[in-house]
């Protein structure tokens, strides 16, 4: 690790003696001992870092042309699309980049859930992750308001009105948020400021996330502790190459959206300028918020709906203590694994229901799916640890490989 590394050149030595930044980076990004059995689900961390940097760079250049003013914002986005050199490309990368970011984060979280990466000693890595997810939601929501189209405006109205459900102070808090008595230009400028700031806060949290990760090191598909040296390989080149390969595939999909169907994930109503006197027929949030939107609408009470939606995210932070099983990886949890897939299916169903109008069968399904979502965490997770008989764990991640080699060696001797 870091202590194994010695800078070679005179300049590097000179710098590293005064600021050991070269040792730091080489320790954490090159030599870092990484379990040798990581699969492709572990490449999403790198992909997410790429997404964040992409959003920051494209966002910075968009901000050079964008005007955060209720009368000018919509026109300035059209100006970016039509007049600014490559403006269409930059905006499409940024808008679709947000979607790609959420695809990656959902897969990354599903990976962590499947392999029990939130369990002791990695609870804080998971919790910091939940906070990153929360900030991503806030950032993407505020970003979507900036073009000041119909969906921007009415999305902002519906979501900021969630705060009016707070007893007693609701109205004062919403007026404070708006800086007005309704959604207006005052909200637009503060959202732009916060939308600009938050990605950098996310960046800070990502550093904490990786710092916390590098204390115990990576979990792995077997979910058992690794023996350094025997079970690990240096991060570079092994995982750098693997991450880059996955990233290239990810970028192909990303480019597919940007160049071939840049508006498929958006809503056409957002190409109509905001009109405070007319609500669109059918308000839907961006696809990545749909499961939570379905939960909001499943509860027939205003405050209750808001509480359910907030809890749906907050409950994630408690998973390390809700899961009573000692076994990390679902590979060795035959019973819980079934419920894991049920949860994934439930979440996808919620997403679908969030896009439909909440009436009739959709409403009933929405309520059932919401019920299961919460039951999974507060009932299934704590109980299954006591009922389930896990499959026997290998002694080390090298064991299966070694014993095969030993057998081969033996059979070679006898033959």
């Amino acid at each position, binding site marked *: 690790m870091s202590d194994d590394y010695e800078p070679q050149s005179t300049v590097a030595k000179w710098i590293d003696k005064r600021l050991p930044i070269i040792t730091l980076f080489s320790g954490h990004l090159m030599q870092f001992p990484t379990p040798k059995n990581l699969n492709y689900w572990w490449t999403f961390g790198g992909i997410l870092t790429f997404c964040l940097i992409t959003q920051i760079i494209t966002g910075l250049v968009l901000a050079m042309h964008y005007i955060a003013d209720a009368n000018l914002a919509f026109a300035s986005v059209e100006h970016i699309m039509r007049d600014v050199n490559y403006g269409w490309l930059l905006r499409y990368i940024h808008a679709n980049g947000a979607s790609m970011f959420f695809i990656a984060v959902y897969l990354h979280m599903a990976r962590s859930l499947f392999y029990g990466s939130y369990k002791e000693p990695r609870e804080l890595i998971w919790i910091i992750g939940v906070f990153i997810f929360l900030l991503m939601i806030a950032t993407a929501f505020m970003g979507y308001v900036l073009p000041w189209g119909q969906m921007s405006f*009415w999305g902002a*109205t*519906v*979501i*900021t*009105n*969630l705060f*009016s459900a707070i007893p007693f102070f609701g109205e004062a808090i919403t*007026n*404070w*948020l*708006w*800086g*007005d*008595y*309704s*959604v*207006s230009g*005052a909200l637009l400028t*503060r959202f732009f400021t916060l939308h600009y700031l938050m990605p950098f806060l996310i960046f800070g949290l990502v550093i904490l996330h990786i710092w916390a990760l590098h204390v115990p090191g990576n979990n792995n598909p077997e979910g058992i502790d690794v023996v350094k040296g025997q079970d690990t390989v240096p991060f570079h080149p092994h995982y750098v190459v693997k991450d880059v390969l996955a990233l290239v595939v990810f970028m192909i999909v990303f480019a597919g959206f940007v160049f071939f169907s840049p508006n498929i994930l958006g809503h056409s109503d957002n190409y109509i300028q905001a009109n*405070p*006197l*007319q*609500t669109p*027929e*059918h*308000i839907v949030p961006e696809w990545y918020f749909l499961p939570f939107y379905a939960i909001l*609408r499943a509860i*027939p*009470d*205003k*405050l209750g*709906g808001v509480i359910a939606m907030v809890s749906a995210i907050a409950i994630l932070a408690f998973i390390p203590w809700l899961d009573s099983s000692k076994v990390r990886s679902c590979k060795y949890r035959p019973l819980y694994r079934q419920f894991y897939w049920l949860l994934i299916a439930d979440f996808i169903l919620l997403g679908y229901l969030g896009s439909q*109008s*909440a*009436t009739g069968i959709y409403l009933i399904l929405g309520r059932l799916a919401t019920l299961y979502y919460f039951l999974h965490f507060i009932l299934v997770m704590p109980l299954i640890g006591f009922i389930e008989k896990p499959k026997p764990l290998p002694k080390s991640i090298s064991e299966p490989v070694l014993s095969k080699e030993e057998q081969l060696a033996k059979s070679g001797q006898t033959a």
Partner: protein
Amino acid sequence: MDTKKDIDTAETKVTRRDFLYLTTGSFTVVGAGALVWPFIAQMNPDASVKALASTEVDLSPIMPGQSITILWRGKPVFVRRRTEEEIAEAQAVEQTDLPDPETDETRVQKPEWLVMVGVCTHLGCIPLGNKGEYNGWFCPCHGSHYDTSGRIRKGPAPKNLEIPSYVFLDDNTIKIG
């Protein structure tokens, strides 16, 4: 230093040091609060927004059964000249049928004129007029039905449509706000 003696004094009486800690602490808290407040209060509606807070409306062009929508404080306000049937319907409702009980009389100054903020009390969409199961307004966002007095009858909205403060300046003009 004699620790035993220190502990004794600390337990038995308030020292000069305790006093200094407490006063310094309190002043720091008050000072920090006073400094933070401007950073929070700057977000509240500002003077220019508040200055626009009243609007006059000419009622003469509105025929019975018609309504107009005007913008007040950035929000739509519905001014509806109700028909006899609508008024009768609104007045006939049993209070027990209402999620947010209010008589029609308390919601209007003159029964013919219904003036209310056209913002759904659920999450702020604008309800559509002459729609819904109660002949009044229907909010397309999550399906709230309001009656001919703007009272919530069905759906997720918790409250009746808000009545702004307004006065009749003369028979044909009202001032909202």
